[in-house]
């Protein structure tokens, strides 16, 4: 018992000790707090003011996008809007009420304002009414004394003169997401937009500009006393795209209601036009796409939001043959002189592969096989070459692989290889290789890839497509096509393939003779492609269906690739018309018209901006 009593007093002593120590610790904290809050008030206080000043940022004006001649493709239109800072009003709801009296607000706007009033901090301006005209703006200014906290903000809205005709390649801008705002506070400013696709996205940083800062003297309650200093915001740089607005419009118009894409490259690598049909109105994204239009876009089977020129994957049909021919020549599977007999079909085991011309082409070499698009010749050639070599040549020619033009969702394209088929546990038969020879089967390429292949065959150089010509005063990739590295292909092989493509357009036996150029002294070379998307069933075969009588979705896709002039190639184009039936009839005329326009434009603008910024 004595021990316990002795312990009791010890516990009491220790308890007192602990309590005193803790009190002392609190005292020390209090002293430290006094030092930080009262003695050091000024330095920290100044820092805090600095913070609140740097918050007052003015959004920069987004840079414009022009074509190679200076035509505006994406610009800004000035507009006014009313903002409201709730902290400056005694009764914010009443002020909104009075505002609605002057400027009618829709039901949706009212509920959004109520939501903003509830959720946003009272320091952050909220939007009352967007896109005011000048009289409405004046009306608000006149009533300013009744509307404390309401102020007019002049802003810009993005406009696209070519609208849906350049929507995919120029892209569109959109409001930043919450996550992006958390990453970069400048994006929280009203009016700042982010490029989401096309050139808007590829050059977003240059277009964005640098925000300006207004230094204001702020009293203890955070309201502005006076403006001290203003560093102006720096407008975004003007981005000059390599496009030619006139050709772009023309391409979009000639695709018309068709679903398809057109790409035209200059020998330097400049993308002169990149059209995808159907299009969409890119200006709608600026303030949020209305829900019904958005769902309409999403439900449209033609997928208007997809940029088919860079993201559309197709089996190119016969337009693939120049690649097969070069692969075969390069590895020695065939020579320029090699001839195969085309009886109209190739029998492989118990399967028969027909030539498109069932009566056969007789003896053909690589040039005449390209000219007449003989399928049997390329069946043999593909078998002799093997899919690995065909895929390797496709990569070399830029048909597949990375073409970094800065546009998001650019598809890489795909050509099958043996390693891939092993990995997928496919049993690769000779028949699979045969259809590879005429660009069917697993082959998947983009129109941009086709155009790149064409310009590389035409020039023999590893040209990469470019979409940005200049940013501000800085020109990109100066110089001509000679700056691009040589592909390292035998000139005789290239000459043979080019000769075949020339004969496609310029000889009566060629598949696109009807689409030869009507420009004196200049010739175009090309290759047609007609890729089936639907195997005819036995019944249909029997009933002697032809392609034109099939339902639209079963009709073949039409392709045409072309370059011109034939002596010193300067332009290359690739046209795809989905379910267009025949490359020669549907796609080739479009290519001819576009190349004719490009050639005649050369004459119109002899001083086509060689090294200048328009």
């Amino acid at each position, binding site marked *: 018992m004595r*021990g*316990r*009593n*002795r*312990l*009791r007093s*010890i*516990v*009491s002593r*220790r*308890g*007192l000790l*602990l*309590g005193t120590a*803790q*009190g002392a*610790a*609190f005292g020390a*904290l*209090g002293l*430290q*707090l*006094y030092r*930080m*809050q*009262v003695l*050091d*008030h000024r*330095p*920290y*206080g100044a*820092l*805090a*003011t600095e*913070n*609140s000043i740097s*918050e007052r940022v003015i959004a920069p004006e987004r840079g414009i996008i022009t074509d190679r001649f200076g035509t505006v493709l994406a610009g800004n239109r000035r507009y006014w809007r009313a903002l409201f800072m709730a902290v400056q009003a005694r009764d914010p709801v009443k002020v909104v009420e009075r505002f609605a009296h002057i400027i009618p607000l829709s039901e949706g706007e009212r509920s959004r304002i109520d939501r903003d009033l*509830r959720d*946003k*901090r*009272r*320091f952050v301006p909220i939007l009352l009414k967007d896109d005011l005209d000048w009289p409405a703006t004046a009306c608000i200014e006149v009533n300013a004394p009744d509307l404390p906290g309401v102020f007019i903000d002049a802003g810009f809205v993005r406009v696209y003169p070519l609208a849906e005709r350049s929507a995919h390649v120029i892209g569109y801008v959109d409001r930043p997401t919450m996550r992006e705002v958390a990453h970069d506070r400048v994006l929280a400013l009203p009016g700042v937009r982010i490029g989401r696709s096309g050139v808007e996205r590829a050059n977003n940083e240059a277009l964005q500009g640098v925000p300006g800062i207004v230094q204001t003297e*702020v009293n*203890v*309650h*955070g309201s502005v006393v006076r403006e001290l200093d203003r560093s102006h915001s720096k407008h975004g740089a003007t981005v000059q795209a390599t496009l030619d607005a006139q050709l772009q419009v023309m391409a979009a118009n000639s695709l018309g209601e068709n679903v398809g894409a057109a790409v035209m490259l200059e020998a330097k690598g400049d993308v002169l036009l990149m059209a995808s049909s159907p299009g969409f109105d890119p200006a709608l994204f600026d303030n949020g796409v209305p829900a019904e239009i958005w769902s309409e876009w999403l439900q449209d089977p033609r997928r208007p939001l997809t940029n088919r020129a860079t993201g559309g994957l197709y089996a190119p049909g016969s337009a693939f043959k120049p690649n097969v021919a070069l692969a075969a020549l390069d590895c020695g599977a065939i020579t320029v002189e090699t001839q195969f007999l085309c009886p109209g079909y190739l029998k492989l085991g118990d399967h028969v592969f027909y030539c498109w011309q069932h009566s056969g082409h007789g003896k053909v070499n690589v040039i005449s096989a390209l000219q007449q698009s003989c399928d049997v010749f390329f069946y043999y050639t593909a078998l002799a070459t093997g899919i690995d070599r065909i895929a390797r040549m496709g990569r070399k020619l830029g048909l597949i692989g990375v073409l970094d033009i800065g546009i998001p969702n650019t598809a890489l394209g795909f050509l099958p290889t043996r390693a891939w088929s092993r990995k997928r546990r496919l049993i690769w038969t000779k028949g699979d290789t045969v259809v590879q020879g005429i660009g069917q089967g697993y082959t998947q390429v983009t129109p941009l890839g086709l155009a790149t292949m064409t310009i590389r065959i035409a020039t023999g150089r590893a040209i990469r497509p470019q979409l940005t010509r200049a940013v501000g005063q800085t020109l990109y990739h100066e110089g001509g096509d000679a700056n691009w590295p040589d592909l390292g292909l035998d000139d005789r092989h290239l000459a043979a393939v080019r000769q075949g493509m020339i004969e496609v357009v310029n000889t009566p036996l060629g598949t696109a003779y009807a689409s030869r150029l009507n420009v004196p002294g200049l010739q175009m070379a090309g290759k047609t492609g007609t890729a089936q998307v639907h195997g005819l069933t036995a019944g249909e075969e029997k009933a002697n269906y032809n392609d034109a009588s099939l339902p639209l979705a079963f009709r073949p896709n039409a392709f045409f690739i072309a370059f011109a002039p034939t002596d010193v190639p300067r332009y290359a184009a690739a046209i795809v018309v989905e379910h267009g039936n025949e490359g020669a009839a549907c796609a080739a005329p479009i290519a001819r018209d576009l190349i004719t326009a490009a050639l005649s434009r050369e004459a119109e603008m002899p001083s086509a901006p060689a090294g200048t910024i328009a």
Partner: protein
Amino acid sequence: MSTLVEYRPYYLKSFRLARKFLRINWLFVIVTCAVAGIGYAALYSAAGGHGEPYAIPQFIRFAAALIMMIMIAMIDIRIIAKCAWPLYAIGLLLLVAVWKFGHVGLGARRWLDIGGLHVQPSEFMKLFLILALAHWFQRASYERVGNPVFLIAPVLAILCPAALILKEPNLGTAVITMTVGGAMLLGAGVRWWKFAIVMLLVAIAAPFAYHHLHGYQKQRILTFLHPGRDPLGAGYNIIQSKIALGSGGMWGQGFLHGTQNQLNFLPEKQTDFVFTIIAEEFGFAGSMVLMGLLFSMVAMAFYTALRCGHQFGRLAAIGIGTNLFLYCFVNLAMVMGLIPVGGVPLPLVSYGGSALTAVMLGFGVLMSVQVHRDVEFAAGDD
């Protein structure tokens, strides 16, 4: 000398409810409500002058916890003492459960989902540890406390949960748990020189332990030593909270007018950094009022301990008071940049359920000690 001399059986000694009710330390309850009220204002301001999403839910939780606290105060302290070790076992099991299949949040496995509620068992474990230790030393004599063998069990009882919490990883709470345990051993009369040896060992082991800390914990220690090292990264919290404190001045910028707070410069300001809001908007004066209230609660806990007739109540009250003190001290020192940052909330003020409930549970036990300060533990009662 014990205050109650004559022995009466347990059933005769239990009070009627109304009498118990009056014996509650109502000043303590009022101060608790005042601190919670300051917390409500801070959370209201943190949401930019709105009750949602912090202030109103927190107020509802506090109201529920207050009722729970009064109810616990009515429970006989001897019953609570009987539950001490079972509760400790449950707490330990929950910690193991967290370790095995806890909810991962912010890089740590601290939460457990029980019926849709996020529970942080480490908060409750501290209280259970206090009760268990108080129970262990309840009947100890001076000689027994001096016996090192007698101390093996309590030391293990401290280290087991501390290790599990450290594993979560939650360095802050683990250190607090060990410190509370240490303070209770000290309060129970363990000899000074034993503490000196442990201190020495810790000092030797510290460099090795630093090696095994997680990357973010090392980061915090380094940032604490040089906040300017990475002003936009790990040092951001400390710098911004220092600015907020400094901009408050003597009288503050005014309610809802704290620049740092309203402009959203402070991350996690509704939880760990809630003090900065009060310091910025109500200045040094407001901070001192809050700190004074908090300290008066600690002081009242010790007062309860000293007035209590039985060893269990004294030690429990010392433990609960020390726990409250450590919460406040670690949080405030962290906000002032005196010690490395480590997820410790400010009791009753910070937004969050587990910490509030655990603290109020502790207050309930404290009030029970206060109400039952002169009951006698029968020989067989433990």
